[in-house]
């Protein structure tokens, strides 16, 4: 039973690492940005600009976080 659980845990850990990577905030921000884009696109307001703004913000925050931690 423990062996099966261990294998399952390793399986999910592998896919988590493969898909999400080492900063889950990036993945979460992408999902939220896509949801906002979808929400805004249902209205008459243009929504294409949301993803570039989100990507710029996420990248900046994510890099800055590592830099601050290292220094």
């Amino acid at each position: 039973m423990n062996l099966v659980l261990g294998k399952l845990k390793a399986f999910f850990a592998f896919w988590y690492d493969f898909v999400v990577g080492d900063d889950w905030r990036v993945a979460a921000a992408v999902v939220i940005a896509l949801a906002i884009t979808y929400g805004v696109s249902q209205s008459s307001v243009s929504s294409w600009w949301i993803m570039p703004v989100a990507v710029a913000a996420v990248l900046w925050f994510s890099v800055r976080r590592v830099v601050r931690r290292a220094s």
Partner: protein
Amino acid sequence: MSGAALFIAVFLACAVEAVEATTIVLAAGTTRDWRSALTGLGCGILVLAVVVGALGPAVSAIPLGGLRLVVGGLLLIFGLQWLRKAILRASGHKALHDEAQAYLDEVAAAKGAVSVRRGAVRDWYAFTLSFKGVVLEGLEVAFIALTFGGNQHNIPLAAVAAVSAILVVAAAGIAVRAPLARVPENTLKFVVGVMLTSFGMFWGAEGAHAHWPGNDAALLVLIPVVLVFSLGLVRLFRRTVTAPSTQPQTSPVVTP
């Protein structure tokens, strides 16, 4: 997106992963046992072929809107991780990926491992090292090729680009029988990170029903903008590190 752009994007991404897989197989082969390492390589390719064979038709069957939303999102997450690491490397906050050093590390680990025979495999360590390296690096190759190909309704061209990259890198690895240290891997990773992020952003937004100004032509603006922004971050954070010091430029984290 033209066929040429699809080919180049997939080729570059797959070449980077293939370089890393080649380093691992070379380390297993030269220090342990070539036959076991090549068996591991063959089994790894077989597993990847099954994965691509199973997922390829599935990806093609997904409606384009849903595919672009899910795949665009995943590509964007992938791309941002690549780009983030590339920016950290270029700005001196993360060690540059060095194939020569990676090769030496694998060789040192391989030399210390005990040799065990299992079934037809003479050296189980060389087999598993090679197999794992090929499958783990190859999964990313398969994912990138399938998603790019699926989005452009041209999985065969994406597959040709992926296989071409693997063959070119493998041929170079066999020719030099040494880690491909001269491949500008860090620069390639930066470029691939920019491309994955740009395409992921474009497809993800389209999947979420956004309409890009100029439709596909928006990519011609997105890619340079992401590149310039990333280079700006490299400059900004490199300057942040060196600004307080009056000493000659030294990076606190870079491992040459």
